[in-house]
């Protein structure tokens, strides 16, 4: 977030050739893991997120159980070879925070009160990180939950937006993310039009934030259509 001298936009095009408001190529697959109750792989350009959902299943140790509701647990992790410099395995402060905000991004879409004493667990592994890993992970987690047959109020769709070279853009890649003036992660339940995750850092005024929120909303809706499509395809296959 410090070097603004890097040229990230040339003649209105981004370093990977995209226009400011253009998403990277997106690929989604569901049911990619045989042992998980639900799973998904989502790619945003070179960023690859793999999510597995288990449950609802009984929560152990028992003292963690809630009498009146189930709980959702989410763990986000970057695998050691997902980045330029090897990331030592295990949780760090960043992944602990991201796991928490991802849980809160998904929870509003769940009916946890239907599963007292139980847990639903979602594990998100970032296989390759090239920017926007948390939102790619949320898209994968939401698909994994849906493909596990967990009842949901809506899917959760997410995307990043931000400001590079004084221009507002959508879906930051790794280089853009590292050199951005600001970045913002947004997740929402598209059919309910409600925000479930909102994080921002950088330097923006109110109007810029509202413009970026609109960018995020439009693109989350596009992502939502892709999510529904991949689930429908899979469901047809299974018939």
């Amino acid at each position, binding site marked *: 977030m410090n070097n603004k001298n890097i040229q990230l936009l040339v003649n209105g095009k981004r370093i990977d050739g995209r226009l400011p408001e253009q998403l990277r190529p997106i690929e989604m697959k569901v049911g990619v893991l045989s042992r998980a109750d639900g799973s998904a792989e989502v790619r945003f350009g070179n960023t690859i997120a793999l999510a597995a959902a288990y449950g609802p299943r009984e929560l152990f140790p028992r003292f963690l159980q809630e009498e009146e509701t189930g709980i959702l647990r989410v763990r986000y992790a970057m695998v050691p070879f997902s980045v330029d410099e090897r990331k030592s395995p295990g949780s760090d402060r960043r992944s*602990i925070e991201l796991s928490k905000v991802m849980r809160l991004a998904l929870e509003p879409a769940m009916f946890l009160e239907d599963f007292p004493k139980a847990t639903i667990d979602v594990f998100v592994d970032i296989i390759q990180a090239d920017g926007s890993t948390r939102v790619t992970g949320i898209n994968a987690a939401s698909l994994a939950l849906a493909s596990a047959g967990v009842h949901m109020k809506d899917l959760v769709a997410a995307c990043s937006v931000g400001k590079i070279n004084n221009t507002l853009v959508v879906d930051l890649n790794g280089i853009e993310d590292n050199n951005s003036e600001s970045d913002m992660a947004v997740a929402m339940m598209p059919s309910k039009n409600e*925000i479930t995750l909102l994080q921002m*850092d950088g*330097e*923006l005024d*109110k109007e810029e*934030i509202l413009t970026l929120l609109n960018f995020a909303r439009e693109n989350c809706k596009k992502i939502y259509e892709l999510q529904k499509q991949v689930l429908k395809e899979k469901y047809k296959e299974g018939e």
Partner: protein
Amino acid sequence: MQEKYALELLEMGKRVDGRKFEEYREIKIEKGPVQKAEGSAIASIGKTKVAAGVKIELGEPFPDAPNEGILIVNCEFSPVASPEFEAGPPGEDAIELARIVDRTLRESKCIQLDKLTVSQDKVFIVFVDLHVLNDHGNLLDTSALAAVAALSVTRLPKVEDGQIKRGEYTGNLPLVYKPVVVSVCKACSKFLVDPDLEEEDVVESKLSIGVRDDGKICAMQKQGTGTLKFEDVGKMLDLAILKSKELRNFLA
């Protein structure tokens, strides 16, 4: 029981302690209570109390920023502050709080990190440790106030023969802004600031907003299990910008 009462009151447009929705509890800041630290402060909002201490050490710069000092923010939810806090390594709430304060300080560029080089390969590392003394709601806003108050009285230590000489100083930490965090809460479709302990349990969602002196937003984080509507965000930003001026007065 308390929760239900707080909720019923909010629905009627009232708060447990009779405050207005956009009103903070009493704010107090004590600067420099800890002489051993290079800078320190205790901020309280109502009964909530957070101590911030700044310690400065020498170290090597990060390879991607060879000419800049380093800022590190930590937070400890000490068991003295609440029966719900446990001794041991920081949990996700403490980590999240520290990271939001960190982003608010870093992204506001309030500390001139490029003025913290000491020699060719040594820079000052500025450790901001937040130590929660009493949790009675709204820890984040209180912590950010404590952090900036402590930084505002931080002195740079004297360096002799490549080592810090404790107790001797060469000047003040170059601090050019005083960012504050205003957490705007949503409960019963209403917006309020500075939830008390009872209110915190009924708040559905919260948007914590870091605001710089010039009104620029330097950090935002949605918290809580509820959702926000798109039209909420603009209103929450307006309220945060308004209240930020008031909070900053306490840092003068």
